[in-house]
C-alpha cells in the first residue's frame, strides 16, 4: 500500500503541476497557437445571447455547432464578422472587435421578425392615442368631446367610453387630461359654456367611474399628481404652496409654503423650497430628511422662484425639470459628456459643483429643451430626449452620485416619446410620426429600424412585459398593435452559459 500511495502521489502531483498552469492560462484567455509560429497567444471571446434563443451563429464563414446562448472562446484578437440567424427572423450582423483577455458581450440581442406581427384592434377613426404607462389601459380620442373618448383595455380588448352618450357631460369639451405613470385614472378638465369642470375618471369592470372634483381644485392649481397606489390624495401646487386634497373627505390641507416644485415617489414627497433646499417629507407634511447632504451654502442668495417639476425615479435618482426644459440634478454637480464617433468620451463642460443645490447657482445638466424622460431601473439610468436628440443619463456611485448625459442619437427630427425595450437593450422612439427601434450597444446606437408610421399628432403606447406596441394607423386612424418581443414561453427558456449577466449594456 505504501508504494501504491507513493506512486499515486507522484501521478497526482504531476497531473496538478501540468494541468494547473494550463487551466489558469485558459481561464485568462491564453491559448496555444498552432502552426509555424507556435506559441502562447492571448485570446478573447464573444458572448452571444438572443431573444428568442436557439439562433445559429456564424463567425465569418464558419458556422458554430452551438446555438445561442453561447460563448465563442479562444478567438485571436481582431475583427470578426458575426452573423446570428434564426428562421423567421432578420439576421443580426455585426463586425465585432475581439481584444486579448477581453470579452465582447452581446447578451441581449433582440432578433427582429422578418415579418412583423401586426393586428388591427379597433377600427377607426381615432384621432389620438393617449398612453397610460404602467397600466393595461389606453385612452383613445375620436373627437373633442368627452363622449369621444374611450378607455381601451389591451389585455381583454374591451373598450368603454369615458361617459355614455346620454350623459349630460357627453358634449363637454375636453380641455386637458392629466395622467400619472402607473395609474389608470384620468384628471379631465372640461370646458362647458362659461364654466370649467374637473372630473376624476377611472375605468372599471362595467363603466368608468366618475367623480366631480370641480370646486375642490382651485383654478390656479398646477402640477396635480397622485400616488398610483393611493387614489385618496391629490397633491398640487397653488401659488407656491404645496396642497393636499383628501378625496374621500374632500378636505384640503396646506402642507408647505414657499415650494418651487415637488415630486412623489414611494409615498414620499420630495420638495424643493424657495431657499433651494430639497427635502423629503411624508404625505402628512412631516419632514423626514434633507435629500442633499449639505443644504445650500451660506451666502447663497435665494433664487427667484422658478417652477420646477421633480421627477423621482428612485431614492438615488432624482431630476428637476424646468419650465423651459432645463434639467437639473440635485447632487454635487454633474457633467455632460458627448460621445465621439470613435467611442471615446470628452468632457464638455463641468457643471456647478457646490454644496447642495440652488436653482440659480448651479448650471443645469441639460440647458434647455428636454421634452421627456424614461427611467430604466435595471441599470439605474434614464433616457432623455429633446426635439432632435436622444441621450442616456447615468448616475455615479454614492455618495457623489454625479449624473452624466451621453447623447446617443443626434440626428432626430421630432422626438416626442421613448420607451425602453427588452431589458434595456433597445429604445423605441417616436420620431417624426414614426416608431423606430434603436439597438443600443455599449452605450451607442448600433442600428436603427423604422417600424411603422404613426398617425400625426398622436402618441403611441408600449408595454415591455407584453412586448407590444399600440399605435394609430396614419390614414384610417385604426388602433393597431405590433408585437416586438417573442412570447415568453417557459418551455423555450434556455439557460445561458453565464449565470449572471455582465453589468454593462451590450
Amino acid at each position, binding site marked *: 500500500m505504501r508504494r501504491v500511495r507513493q506512486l499515486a502521489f507522484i501521478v497526482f502531483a504531476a497531473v496538478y503541476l501540468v494541468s*494547473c498552469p494550463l487551466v489558469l492560462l485558459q481561464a*485568462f484567455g491564453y491559448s496555444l497557437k498552432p502552426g509555424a509560429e507556435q506559441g502562447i497567444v492571448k485570446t478573447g471571446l464573444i458572448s452571444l445571447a438572443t431573444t428568442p434563443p436557439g439562433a445559429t451563429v456564424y463567425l465569418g464563414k464558419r458556422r458554430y455547432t452551438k446555438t445561442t446562448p453561447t460563448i465563442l*472562446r479562444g478567438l485571436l484578437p481582431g475583427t470578426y464578422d458575426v452573423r446570428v440567424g434564426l428562421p423567421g427572423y432578420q439576421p443580426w450582423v455585426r463586425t465585432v472587435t475581439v481584444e486579448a483577455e477581453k470579452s465582447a458581450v452581446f447578451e441581449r440581442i433582440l432578433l427582429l421578425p422578418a415579418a412583423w406581427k401586426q393586428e388591427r384592434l379597433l377600427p377607426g377613426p381615432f384621432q389620438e392615442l393617449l398612453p397610460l404607462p404602467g397600466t393595461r389601459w389606453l385612452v383613445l380620442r375620436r373627437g373633442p368631446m368627452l363622449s369621444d373618448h374611450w378607455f381601451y383595455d389591451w389585455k381583454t380588448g374591451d373598450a368603454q367610453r369615458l361617459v355614455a352618450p346620454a350623459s349630460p357631460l357627453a358634449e363637454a369639451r375636453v380641455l386637458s387630461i392629466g395622467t400619472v405613470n402607473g395609474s389608470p385614472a384620468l384628471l379631465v378638465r372640461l370646458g362647458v359654456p362659461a364654466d370649467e369642470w374637473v372630473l376624476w375618471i377611472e375605468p372599471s369592470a362595467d363603466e368608468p367611474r366618475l367623480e366631480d372634483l370641480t370646486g375642490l381644485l382651485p383654478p390656479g392649481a398646477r402640477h396635480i399628481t397622485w400616488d398610483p397606489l393611493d387614489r385618496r390624495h391629490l397633491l398640487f401646487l397653488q401659488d407656491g404652496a404645496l396642497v393636499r386634497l383628501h378625496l374621500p373627505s374632500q378636505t384640503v390641507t396646506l402642507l408647505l409654503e414657499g415650494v418651487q416644485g415637488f415630486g412623489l415617489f414611494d409615498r414620499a414627497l420630495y420638495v424643493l423650497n424657495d431657499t433651494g433646499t430639497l427635502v423629503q417629507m411624508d404625505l402628512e407634511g412631516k419632514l423626514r430628511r434633507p435629500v442633499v447632504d449639505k443644504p445650500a451654502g451660506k451666502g447663497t442668495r435665494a433664487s427667484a422662484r422658478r417652477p420646477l417639476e421633480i421627477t423621482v425615479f428612485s431614492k438615488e435618482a432624482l431630476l428637476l425639470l424646468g419650465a423651459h426644459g432645463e434639467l437639473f440634478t440635485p447632487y454635487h454637480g454633474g457633467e455632460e459628456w458627448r460621445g465621439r464617433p470613435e467611442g471615446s468620451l470628452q468632457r464638455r463642460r463641468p457643471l456647478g459643483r457646490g454644496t447642495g443645490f440652488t436653482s440659480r447657482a448651479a448650471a443645469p445638466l441639460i440647458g434647455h429643451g428636454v421634452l421627456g424622460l424614461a427611467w430604466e431601473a435595471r441599470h439605474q439610468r434614464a433616457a432623455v430626449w429633446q426635439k432632435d436628440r436622444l441621450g442616456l443619463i447615468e448616475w455615479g456611485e454614492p455618495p457623489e452620485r454625479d449624473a452624466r448625459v451621453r447623447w446617443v442619437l443626434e440626428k432626430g427630427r421630432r422626438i416626442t416619446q421613448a420607451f425602453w425595450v427588452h431589458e434595456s437593450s433597445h429604445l423605441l422612439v417616436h420620431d417624426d410620426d414614426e416608431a423606430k427601434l434603436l439597438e443600443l450597444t455599449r452605450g451607442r446606437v448600433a442600428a436603427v429600424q423604422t417600424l411603422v408610421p404613426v398617425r400625426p399628432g398622436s402618441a403611441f403606447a408600449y408595454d415591455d412585459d407584453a412586448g407590444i406596441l399600440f399605435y394609430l394607423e396614419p390614414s384610417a386612424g385604426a388602433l393597431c398593435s405590433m408585437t416586438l418581443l417573442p412570447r415568453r414561453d417557459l418551455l423555450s427558456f434556455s439557460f445561458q452559459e453565464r449565470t449572471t449577466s455582465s453589468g454593462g449594456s451590450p
Partner: protein
Amino acid sequence: MNFRFSPHLTTGRDRVLHRLFSILPGLASWTILLGMIGLAVGKPRLAAALVIAFNLYWLLRLLFMTLFLVLSYLRLSLEQDTDWMERVRGLDRLDPYLTALRRSAAGRSLRGRLSRWLHLRELQRVRAQEPLPPSETIVHLVLIPIMKESRHILAPGLASLARQTFPPKRILVVLAVEERASDAVKADVRELQRRYRAVFLDLLVVVHPDGLPGEARVKGANATYAAKAAAALLAERGIRVEDVVASCFDADTVVDPQYVACLTYRFLTCPERTRASFQPIPVYHNNIWDVPSFARVLDIGSSFFQLIEATDPERLVTFSSHSMSFAALVETGYWPVDMISDDSAIFWKAFIRFDGRYRVVPLPITVSMDITAAESWWKTVGHVYRQKRRWAWGVENFPVVMRAFVTSRTIPLSARLRHGFKLFETNVSWATWGFLLTVIGWLPALLVGREFSDSVLYYSAPRITATIFGLASISLATTIILSLSLLPKRPVRWSSLTRIGHALEWLLIPIISTCFSALPALDAQTRLMLGGSLEFRVSEKGRRREDDRRDTAGADGGAAYAVDELELAGEDWRGS
C-alpha cells in the same frame, strides 16, 4: 528523548517556542481566509486565479483520497469473514500452519482468496522474524473511562468484550470512574462489575480521585490513574508488561467479536511490537439511525477519513478508541493528564519518547461508537459542534510536538519534517477548506466590478469551477455508495423514501463541512492562538431502546437490567 509532554510545564525558551507554535496554525488559517477575502475585494482577478488553482488542487486531492478510501474499504471488507483467532493459533505453530494453509483450497470467493494471499505473504515475513511469543502469554488490558454514562451505554460494550473469540479470561477490564461521577453511575458500574467479573480475567472498578495535583479534568488523567492501578495488579499476578496490550475505549465502544483476536494477531506479527499503537476503524453505528442526518453524515465522514488514513501507516496517528503496547504506555509515562486530546497525544508522546521509532499499525476491523445526540435537534447541533471542536482541539498537540521536534537531536529530520508538516497542514486545511470551497471561493465572482465583467476570466472562471465540481461529484457518488455499504442494517421501520433520503443527505456536505467541521476547527485554533483553552465535556450519547425511549448518559440507574436487554444490545451490535 526525555521530554515533558505538556502544554503547561514550559518556562523560558520553551514557553516562547510553545507560544509561537500555538499561534502558528490559527494565524495561518486566518491569514488564508482573510487574505482571500481581501484579495477578492482588492485584486479579484488574482483571487479568481488562486481560487481556480485551489479548486483544482482540492479536486485532485479529493480524487486521491477517494482512491484510497476505496482501497481501504476493500481491504476492510477483505477481512470481514476472517477468523483471526485461528490465525493467532496458527502463529503458535507457524510452520505446520503455513504448510497447511498452502495446501488448503483457496476458497471460492475473490475476497477469500485475496485475504488468504495477503495472509500468506505476511506469514512469510513473520517467519523471517525472531520467534514470536506464545499467544497464551498475551493479556489484554481494556480501560474504559467513565464519567456519566449509564449502564445502557456501558453494557453493550462489556457484552461485546465478553463475546470475544479471544478468551475473555485473558482480558483484564478496568472501569475507570471519576470520583465526581454521580452515585447512579457508580451504582451502575458496581452492578456491571458484579455481573461480568467472572467472565474476564478480572473486572476492576477504579475511582479516579478529583483534583489531583497537576491534573486537569480530562479523560487522559482518569485513564492514566486506572492504567497505573492495572499495572500494579498485573505486577502482582506476575504478568509482564511486554505481554500486555492496552486498549483505551470510549465508554460507548462496542467491538467486533474478532477485535481482540485481530489485535493479538497484529501485535504478535508486528516488528518491534512494543513500539507500536494499533488503530481500528471507528464507525458510529450504535445509534446511527436515531440521529439527525447532519450528525450521521459527519461521523460517517470521520470513519471515511480514518479509512483513508489507514492507507498511510507512516503518518497515521491514533484517534479515539485504540490500542497500544502496554510496555510502551508504561515507558512513555501513560497518557498526558493535562490535555484534552489524549488519544492523539499519547501517540506523539510515544513518538517523541522513542526518538521517532514508533508507529501506528492500522487494524482492518471496526469498533462501533455512538454519534453524539440529544433530545432535540437544536441540542444535538450544539453537542455535535462542541464535540467536533474538541476533536479539532487536537491542534494543542502541535506546539508541544513542534517544541520537541525543534529541540530534538535524535528524531530523524525526515520524520520530523514529515510529521510536522502533516500536523500543520492537516489542521490548517481542516479549518479553511470548508470556507474556501463554499463561501470565499465565490467572492471574486460576486464582488467583481463592471470593469472586469468584460474580461475572459469573468466568463471562464465559472465554467472551470463548474467542471471541477462536476468531476468532484465522482467522489461524492463513490462516498455515497460506500456509506450505504458501510452502514448497518436498517431497522425495518424505514421506508424506501427514507432510504433515498439517507443517500441524498450527502448533498448537505457543503453546509455540514463548513458549519460542523471547518468552523469548530477554526474556533479551536483561534482559542489556542489567543492563549485560551477548552473545557473537557463528555459528549452526550443517546440510543433508542426497544421501547423507543431514548437513553442518554446519566439517565436512570440502579435497577437491574434483564438478560433480554443484553441480548438485544448484542443483536443491535451484530446488525452493525
